[in-house]
């Protein structure tokens, strides 16, 4: 006798291509992380001020990335590696930078992704 397959309500949800997940609106997140801002002081009173400073710094960083678009940027990486390339864009988690005309000791790479974890600092002329 042929067995009927067990029915399912739906299939498991897959990853969101645009984000790394960990939805801050999920009940677990809200319950366990009332503030997602790690406060160095650990005191409730300082959180607002720290939040303001963090927002300012974040905004400055994002504006820097915008300003960097299509400009030649020098990257100082680990192992004493220094490269120069035209900055294109960053991904949402600042894990990779898309660059063009990457100058390397073995030639110029037309298009490349640089891993942000590998960078120590980068600079460009405003």
């Amino acid at each position, binding site marked *: *006798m042929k*067995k*009927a*397959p*067990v*029915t*399912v*309500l*739906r*299939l*498991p*949800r*897959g*990853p*969101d291509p645009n984000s*790394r*997940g*960990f*939805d*801050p609106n*999920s*009940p*677990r*997140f809200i*319950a*366990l*992380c009332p503030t*997602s801002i790690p406060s160095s002081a650990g005191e409730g009173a300082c959180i607002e001020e720290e939040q303001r400073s963090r927002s300012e710094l974040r905004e400055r960083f994002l504006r820097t990335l915008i300003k960097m678009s299509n400009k030649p940027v020098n990257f100082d990486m680990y192992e004493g590696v220094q490269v120069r390339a035209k900055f294109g864009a960053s991904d949402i*988690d600042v*894990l990779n930078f898309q660059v063009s005309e990457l100058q390397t000791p073995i030639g110029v790479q037309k298009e490349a992704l640089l*891993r942000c*974890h590998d960078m120590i600092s980068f600079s460009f002329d405003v």
Partner: protein
Amino acid sequence: MAMRQTPLTCSGHTRPVVDLAFSGITPYGYFLISACKDGKPMLRQGDTGDWIGTFLGHKGAVWGATLNKEATKAATAAADFSAKVWDAVTGEEVLTLAHKHIVKTVDFTQDSNSLLTAGNDKLLRIYDLNKPEAEPQEISGHTSAIKKALWCNNDQQILSAADDKTIRLWDKTSSEAVKTLTFDQAVSSMEYIPDGEILVITYGKTVAFYNAHSLDLIKTVDAPTSIHSASLHPDKDYFVAGGDDFKLYKYDYTTKEEMESYKGHFGPVHCVRFSPDGELYASGSEDGTLRLWQTAVGKTYGLWKCVLPEELASENSDAIYCPPEIKA
């Protein structure tokens, strides 16, 4: 009427899934973490397989992954010579522990205060997560790469399996090997069941059960194929195993009889584990997917719904998904 198993496929990984682990049961359910050669371990809701998030940061294949009991922390072991500790609620990387070679395995103590790591440098390392900058305690002895290391006996002892074909039981305080088991072939996987102190070991086509204290053999069961991983049900009535022939096997633990086998994966099965409530088991495969399988086929649980034949034919069946018949 007997029902046919419908596994739930969790996609998202782009390379083989080599390790998986469940958390304990938390107020928010239980969770599942998968280690993948694509370097991006993922967290999923344990009973549905729904993706929650991806831990981004490793620069190489992730060989081992684990969650603490409360599913608030995750740890991963990777080919980039590091083990990382993560906040499993926010997905943020909390700690990177540099090693001198590929790290293969990670395990938290019950209180989540210590992390055990091991890998190709043949050393067991114990990190105090409250003092991560401090040098870890190192335990040496294995003569080849360590594949799996687990806390046992109330976190007072450590079990490790290595490519030197031995499993060793170590005392944490003295760093000494208390017992050694030697095999003819490399051990492919190891699972420790604290409740009952049972150790599940796989090698060749064999699934073996040992007493975790004495390392006395309880029983062995031979399977039709080379087995990569096995897991014992919390109630110790069944165990499941998977390996080279892509199938999942379910055995009666008491009688050692093979009860069922299931097709579904398109590649060898690398890891299989029962959920903490025993209602399902998850398998990870070379095909890049995780699959969730019901222990009691046909039971309403998670995304599986027990539907009577009359209901299927009625107008209320809109919300119910009937999987297409797949000829294997």
